[in-house]
């Protein structure tokens, strides 16, 4: 194991000590033996790829959710925060990833929000305004009009308002969960200067960032999470960008190449199904020209919020292309209708809210999208539907008691297979899948890999967004990696590895020379 624990075992002096913390959501282990130790007066970075458990850890420390097991020791005493207020009272102030600023409240009210009781104010009106101005001054935005609605602020200023809110609390530990993503360089530098001042006051900062330059320049120590586990904690000089990226990617990366020899041969010759020409998510980003061929699995990767989802939605007609076009054989795709006509089937990310009809049967769920194809004079035969459901279910390896059992009786993995079956039942030319195997158990995952490879073998074009690097390495012929709303790299089979993906996701991909991405 390439693990290095820095020699900071001053356990009795630690401000916060997290030991063997675990938390599962259904079948997904979001945190699985997570360890973290924070000293007074340090700036500590927390890094890891998507789904490595950073947000879960932070939510537990902030009292948003509870852990299943494990210890959190705060100032030497065991602590368990049942609600955000408890954590804040104890001295932990958190700025969350989503800017939780209320657009209809004034900047002033947004910043003091949560300090008071239901009715009683903690401080008088004048004192309040003074505190707000001080907090904004620390962040270098003292000139902000504190009476204006927060909804009229830019994204960057909203983020600063969120940070100012946390600064108002008497904190010992400030947690910043990707709170710098919208800030420009000047704002960020001012924030970092403030963080360093806090450190010299003996206060502690824990920050999550996907920008390696921030981590290496600011952090005294860096803890790396991978699949819910702590991989190691590195002191400042050990925490080089290369080292961190290497540790973040899993050891199984090397294994990915095997079991996929067939991919290359099938990819080359199919007809083009989808064409991106001069496509970009924002003006000024490098345009992408790419073709997805029948029988190809094109992966899509990126850190949360870097544009990959928008890319997928453009391909499925759910969103208009900001620049350039996405086109199928019969013309450009502008709407879900166009996508349906081009026989492009889309699988949304959230199974529970956008996918299954929980009270209905497996048959209903599989055939609901293809009813028009099954109907004769507007009537649908029950036997016919059942036959289709059984056949599709067999192809997608759905394990069910009967096609008439409610879909909610199936495991998450089998529900997902049934949804995949629903898409296939519409006889599509291309599948656009938004992280279809997130939170699916291993056995079902393996089934789905086979199903996808099988479909591709039969000439289906597949656009697969995944947050699991191993999955992308195993299944895809090429992977488009997004960074900061732009295409950072299109990594071909030959170059595909978890290391390459992570480097590209963090904007550090150095393309090997002479690689033709369209090969």
């Amino acid at each position, binding site marked *: 194991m390439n693990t290095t624990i820095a020699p900071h075992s001053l356990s009795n002096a630690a401000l916060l000590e997290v030991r063997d913390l675990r938390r599962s959501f259904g079948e997904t282990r979001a945190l699985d033996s997570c360890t973290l130790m924070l000293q007074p007066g340090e700036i500590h970075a927390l890094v890891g790829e998507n789904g490595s458990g950073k947000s879960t850890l932070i939510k537990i420390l902030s009292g948003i959710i509870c852990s299943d097991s494990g210890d959190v020791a705060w100032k030497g005493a065991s602590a368990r925060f049942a609600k955000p207020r408890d954590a*804040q009272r104890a001295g932990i102030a*958190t700025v969350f990833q989503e800017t*939780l600023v*209320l*657009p*209809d409240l004034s900047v002033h*009210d947004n910043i003091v*929000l*949560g300090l008071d009781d239901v*009715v009683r104010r903690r401080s008088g009106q004048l004192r309040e305004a003074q505190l707000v101005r001080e907090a904004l001054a620390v962040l270098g935005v003292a000139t902000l009009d504190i009476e204006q609605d927060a909804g009229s602020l830019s994204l960057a200023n909203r983020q600063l308002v969120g940070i100012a809110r946390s600064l108002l609390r008497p904190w010992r530990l400030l947690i910043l969960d990707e709170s710098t993503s919208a800030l420009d360089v000047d704002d960020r530098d001012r924030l970092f200067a403030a963080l360093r001042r806090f450190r010299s006051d003996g206060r502690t900062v824990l920050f999550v960032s996907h920008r390696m330059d921030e981590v290496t320049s600011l952090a005294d120590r860096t803890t790396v999470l991978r699949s819910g586990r702590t991989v190691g904690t590195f002191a400042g000089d050990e925490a080089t960008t290369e080292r961190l990226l290497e540790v973040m990617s899993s050891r199984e990366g090397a294994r990915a190449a095997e079991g996929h020899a067939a991919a290359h041969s099938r990819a080359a010759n199919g007809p083009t199904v989808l064409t991106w020409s001069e496509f970009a998510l924002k003006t000024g980003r490098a345009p992408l020209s790419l073709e997805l061929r029948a029988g190809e699995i094109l992966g899509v990767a990126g850190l949360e919020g870097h544009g990959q989802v928008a890319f997928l939605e453009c391909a499925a007609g759910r969103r208009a292309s900001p620049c350039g076009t996405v086109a199928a054989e019969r013309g450009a795709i502008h709407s879900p209708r166009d996508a349906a006509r081009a026989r492009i089937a889309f699988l949304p990310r959230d199974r529970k809210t956008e996918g299954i009809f929980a009270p209905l049967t497996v048959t209903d769920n599989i055939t609901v999208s293809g009813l028009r194809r099954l109907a004769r004079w507007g009537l649908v035969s029950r036997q016919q539907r059942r036959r289709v459901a059984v056949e599709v279910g067999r192809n997608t390896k759905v394990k069910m008691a009967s096609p008439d059992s409610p879909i909610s009786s199936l495991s998450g993995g089998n529900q997902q297979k049934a949804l995949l079956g629903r898409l296939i039942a519409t006889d599509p030319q291309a599948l656009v899948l938004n992280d279809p195997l997130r939170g699916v158990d291993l056995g079902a995952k393996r089934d789905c890999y086979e199903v996808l490879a099988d479909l591709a073998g039969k000439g289906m074009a597949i656009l697969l967004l995944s947050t699991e690097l191993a999955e992308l390495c195993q299944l895809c012929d090429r992977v488009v990696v997004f960074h900061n709303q732009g295409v950072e790299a299109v990594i071909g089979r030959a170059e595909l590895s978890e290391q390459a993906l992570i480097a590209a996701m963090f904007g550090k991909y150095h393309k090997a020379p002479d690689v033709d991405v369209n090969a």
Partner: protein
Amino acid sequence: MNWLRTHSYAAPVLAALVIFLILNALASPAFLDPDNWNGLLVGAAPFIIIAMAQTPAILSGDGGIDMSVGPLAGVVNALVTVTLMSRGWSDPISIIGCSLAVGVVSGLINGVLIAVVRVQPIIATLGTYLVYQGLAVEILPMAGGTAPEWLRDLAGTYAGVPGMVFLFALIAAAWLLLERTAFKRNLLAVGGDARAAYSAGVNVAGVRILAYVISGVLAAIAGLAFTAALGSGDPRVGTPYTLTSIASVALGGVAMTGGRGGMLGAAAAGALLFLIQTLCTLAQVSIFYLQIFYGLVLIVALALNAGAERARHRRLAAQVG
């Protein structure tokens, strides 16, 4: 300046209110006669107060609504004119005290059901709506009973000043006082985005419960107001006010999803609905058309509102860009 900014949501309804005052005056010159003012205020009071009662519940968000305000006012009416009067508890302290206590208890029940037990607000308060409706008929099977002397006097004038003016002043003072506390911003935050408020450390359940308690108390005061106006009891008089109150809140520029708006808009809209009624009476339009008129006004207002809302979202989206 600041006050203008935070109350700009009420501008359309206030403008409509002025227009309908003018229309009423045009329809009947007697409308402007000072001798009429007291009668108008007495008639408008239940509309205005019940609209204010609905406001905190809807502002609290997550489907917040208080269906029970109308029947609760009816229960207070029956309680005062029958139960308390028959026991000789006719002094102001007993009657006001009991009425407010009923409002508080009812609000607590609604609030706890919604914020703690987590029953859908419309279902929880529909439950209490039915209970209170039954309760009012149980106490007072048909119109009857009498209001105490001092309460009927409230519908008159004191030294030329309508009694209702004092009542409004009292309610406004109480609300303005509450606005100076943290409650108003906590309520708007909880109604705007409960998750954001929760993670900022706001006691979301506490804020919601208090919102429904205020609704209950104001509904009870509305009950007293129309007891004063009627001078007697009627078990069925309260119920229809629930719909009036919801319509007023919507007309008053309060976001039905919560988090935006305030009492001023709802109160003005309550008065507006009353003026529509008087205008119909003055113009000798049949009472049957009144409902149709209410409905049309509501739909037009909300359609305009939805258009303004879309424009606002576009503007905000452009700013974030």
